Every structure is written in C-alpha cells, then in structure tokens.
C-alpha cells in the first residue's frame, strides 16, 4: 500500500508529492541562501544601486533610504542576513514556515520596488524577458505553496524539534 504523509490536519500527500515539495523547498532555499551569502562575502555590496533604480510607488521610499546612511546600513543588513537565514532555514527545514513568510515579505519588497510593469524602464541590464511576471513573483508564490504545504516536519530538522516538543508535551 502506498504510504501517505499527513502535512496538516486535513491534507495527506503521497511520496512523490512529498519529495516534490521537499525538492522545491531545498532549491528555493539554495537560491535565497546564495543570494545572501554572495552579498555577505562581498564587502562592497550595497543595496543602494538596486534602490536607486527603483520605479513605481515605492521609488520615493527607496530614494529616501539611499539618501540616509543609517537607513541604508539597516537595509543592507536586513537584506544580507535576512536572505542568508531564510535560505538556511528552508534548505535544512528548520522553522521553515516562518522562513516562508519572511521570504515572501522580502521578495515581495524586491518585486514591489522594481516591478516589470508596462512603461517602467530600468537602467540596470536585465537577465531575462519579463512582462509583469518575473522570477521574484514566481518565487513568492513558490514560497506560498511551501507555506501551505509544509514538509519540514516530515523531512527536515523540524521533525526533530517537533518530536522533542511532543515528548515534552507527553511528560
């Protein structure tokens, strides 16, 4: 008989579905982790270039951040460490639902600060062709799916944490 995995009180999924979701979680985590680490190891990285090129409704906020050294420093830290921690959590499956929410918030900001909408021109060179939908938007919804269908309590460090909590609850 095929084994089923219960991922929340209503849903059970089969092996293929579970491994598919885990694989998605790990590769999204990998991407986010490397985005963070790449910035972390580059002492000259700054969010200023991205923010200066911001268009649409948040461009005013972006420029205010750039022109205030304290805010810019905070923005740099939040980006570097936010991405690194979220990526790490997703990959290893630890606190991964929180990581999904954090990742959605952060990547939504990237999307909203420079959305590929009609009529918006960016001066930085693009690495693909996008019309409204870009990789950020897709990743946001990938994280949403991972949030709705959590897997880290099945495959991931959350499994151990959950067991510990259960044991504590029992004792």
């Amino acid at each position, binding site marked *: 008989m095929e084994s089923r995995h219960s991922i929340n009180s209503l849903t059970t999924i089969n092996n293929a579905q579970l491994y598919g979701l885990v694989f998605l979680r790990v590769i999204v985590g*990998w991407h986010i982790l490397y985005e963070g680490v790449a910035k972390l190891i580059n002492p*000259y990285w700054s969010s*200023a270039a991205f923010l200066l090129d911001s268009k649409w409704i948040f461009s005013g906020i972006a420029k*205010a951040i750039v022109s205030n*050294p304290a805010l810019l420093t905070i923005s740099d830290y939040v980006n570097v460490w936010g991405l690194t921690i979220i990526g790490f959590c997703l*990959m*290893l499956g630890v606190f991964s639902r929180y990581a999904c929410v954090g990742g959605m918030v952060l990547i939504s900001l990237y999307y909203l600060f420079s959305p590929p909408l009609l009529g918006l021109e960016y001066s930085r060179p693009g690495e693909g062709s996008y019309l409204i939908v870009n990789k950020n938007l897709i990743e946001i919804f990938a994280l949403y799916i991972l949030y709705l269908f959590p897997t880290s309590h099945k495959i991931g460090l*959350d499994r151990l944490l959950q067991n510990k909590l259960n044991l504590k609850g029992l004792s």
Partner: protein
Amino acid sequence: MSNESSHDQNVQRRDFIKALATIPVFGFFLANLWLKLKKDALKRKNLLVDLVQEKKPPTIIKNRSNGKHLNIGIIGYGGRGSHLVRGAGFATKGWTDYAYKANQENNLHKAYSTFMSQDDLNCSLIGVCDLFDVNADLGIDASKNDTGPGGAPKYSAKKYMNHREMLENDDIDAVIIATPDHWHSKIVVDAVKAGKHVYCEKGLTRTFQEALDIHDAVKETGMILQLGHQNRQVEANDKAKEIIDQGLLGPVNLVELTTNRNSQWGAWVWNIHKDANSKTIDWETFQEPSPNKIPFGPEALKRYFRWRCWYDYGTGLSGDLFSHDYDQLNQIMAMGIPKYASASGGIYFYKDGRDVPDVWHVTLEYPDRDMTVLYSATLSSNNSRGNRIMGHDATMILGGQSNAGGVGGFSVEADRESTQYRERIEKGIINTKYPIYNYSPGSKQIDGVTSATSQYFANKGLLYAYRDGKRVDPTHLHVKDWLDCIREGRQPKCNVDVAFEEAVTCAMATESYLTGRRVEWDPIKRRLV
C-alpha cells in the same frame, strides 16, 4: 518486548535520517561555495595583486588654508565664473536659496550640502569685474552672502569697470579669470605683471602667440598660475596613471579621445539675457582684442552671449572640449606637445551663422613615443564613445571628460592577443569579455571580480554620488590647490608648464583646421612650422 524496542529504535533512526536528509545538500552547497571562493580568490590574486602593486589610500584632503588670508578678485562672473567663485566659497543668495529649497524638496539634490561642506579657504572676494552689469551685481551679491562654508564674509567686493582698474588695487592678492578666451592672455599678462596670482579658465589662449606671451610673463614674474582643468583633481586619473606607469596595458600606440554632445546648450547656443542692451553691456571693451569688430546690435548680443561660436573670441571645440580630453591624457601619460597636428571638420549641423565647426577631428602625432592620438567630436550626437587608451596587452576605457555627466571611472580590458596575459587567458583566469580592472570614483576600492550589474552602476558613477557621505566638487579642489600653492610657494597641479602644453597643442589643432595643412611644432625655436 525486544521486538517493540527494536521497532522504537527503527522509528527513531528513521526520524533521525529524515530530519537530517537535506544536510548533504547543505554540505554540497558549502563545498561549491568554497570552490567558488577559491576561484575568485585566485582571480583576485592574479589580477589585483599584479595590477595594483601599491594600494594607495584615497587622497586625504588636508586643510592648508589656515595661513595667510587671501583677497581675490573675479574677472568675468558668468556661468563658469560663478561656479569658480562658488568653489572658493561664495555663492549668490539666489543660488543658496535655490539649492537649499531643491534639497528640501528632493534630498538627493546635494548641491547645497556639497557647497556648505567645502573647506573654508580663508579668503575674501573683494573685487568683481564683468562687462555685463547684471553679472557684476550678482558677483557683488555673492561676496556678501552669509550662507557659505566660511560663514559671514570678512569683506565684500567692489565693482570694477575693467580689469586694469581692479589690478591697481594692492589689496588683491590673486584673480580668477573666466572671461571669453580672447581676453585671457591680456588679462593674465597684466595681472602677473601687477603681482597677482592667476587662476585662468581653459582654453588658455585663442592663438599660439598668446600662449608664448602668457608662458613668458608668468615665468618672468614667478607668480602662480593655475589653468582651469579641474580633472587634475580627479583621483581616477591618478589611478589610471599608476596602472599605465606599471606597464599593464603594454605598448600603447593609439589613443582615441571623443566628445559627444547633442543639445543647444552643449553647442553653446546659450540664452541671451533679457536685460542685455547697450547700456548694461560694455560691447566695445568686449570686442577690443578680437580681430573683427562689429557695431552693437542684435548680432553683437548673440556674439556676446554665445561667444564660443566664433573664432573672434574663442576656438570652438578646440579650447572648450578638446582641451579637457587632451589635458586628461596629458595628466595620465605626460604626453606634452605633439610633433604634428592635423585637423578637419565642418559646420554640419548648427548652420546658425557660427564660424567654428560642430564636427571636428584632430590627429596628433608623437613619433618619439610611437604614438598617435585621435580626437573626434560631434555636437549633434550623444552616443558616448568615451576615451580609449589602446595597448597591445589591454585597453583602458575612460568616461570622456568632455561628455555630459563628466567625471566617471574607468575599466581595463585584456586583449585576447596579449603577450603579457597570454598564459592567464589560456588558463581561463582572465576572461577577455569582462574588464580585468574597474575603478569607480567614490567606491571604497577596486574590485576585479564584480558582477555585470555592479560594473554597470560603477561606470555610471551612481555609487560615487550617494554612497560615501562626502561628495566633493573637483572645481573646489582645483581652486583650493591654487590658493594652497600661493601660500606655500609651490606649483599647482595645472601649472604654467602644463598650461603651455595645452595651449600650444590646441593652437596647433586650430591652425591646422583654419589653414588646411599639417602643423609642426619646433621645440627649439618655439614656433609652429
């Protein structure tokens, strides 16, 4: 019992394996990260260490202005003159109000804070001379404005009807000359003979003879002359010089300099002031040194405000823009005066009555150095070609000094047929598609391994403008260099010898264009052949 415990153990083991199942992926990630870091480090080692043998810290601007208080006069308080005086610490009330308001509305507008954070140069503006009354009054206004890096000024300026009257004032130590070019040599010679130090705007002179006059007068009197090429204060040019001095480009046989502008303003079609008339403008004094004279009228007004368009008052592209790019190259490679110059071009776009060309090219030959320098300019296209110093091993690409936007950084690209880098190109350490070296002003250092995006931004100078708190106007530094040298009896960065090289080179190019023949420099007899 034993069955149950072994079942529990199995469950625990399975739990454990499933909990740690993605750890190997993380290990794989770390292993790849380590490989990448190692590769990047190897790239850096092979590029940066070689490229920058000595890492000079950025120039620290020391305040040397606490010596003698200097009194300066401005001759020609127009667009450029007002900028120079601002560099010395004096702006009109109208300008400081405007810049302050602009910053309140948009805090990326930094002109006000850039001005206010200038060093106090410990000087006063005590004389203003301008043939247009409106400008003269603005100059007086600037000398009195309490808003400035030095606070309330010690003295305010007196208005002079002409430069000779101003030079009679013994309280004036030094003068800034920002008149049209046809007046430069007369005023410089009169000023140094009257014992005044001189800051003169570029191009130094209108003719070759005037260059000799200035050179000789300055040398005889020993006064300090600074020519207005503020690029001399730009660190990127010093860095470029270091790289070329280290031989990293290999033999250089060809340099390309370019100017690309495409606007009325860029083509010197400047506004004719609404208050300009025969009463507010001293037209006869204006045209005193020019070869051709015309009576005052609408044509004269055009010539007064758009003087760069006529050879009677300037030399068009030569003195205005070629001089900048030539001086940048002279700063980086100590070119000196070429052996031959030939120029060509024409009035192809602005058929508005001007007699200077709007498309113009010069070839400078340096046979002793096995080098040709090509300069090409257009006033009807913004296609920014930059400046290229082309070596056998690598090419240095600089943002052109004369293009809109001005001072940028530079990058160095290895040549795929390079001898010096052959081994590294073969090993894949150097990828000739990407720059091996990038310098952007204001960024903390040089990074040989940057992403395409950050290189793009670096070249745009965006990081420079907003990243590091203080942004400095090179014009201020250039004026400061001049005043510091006056106090210390040193020669400034764009001193009379360098200025003479600029003036003679520009004069050779202008003469070649006007006569249609190749012009030769005879350094022994100091004449053009």
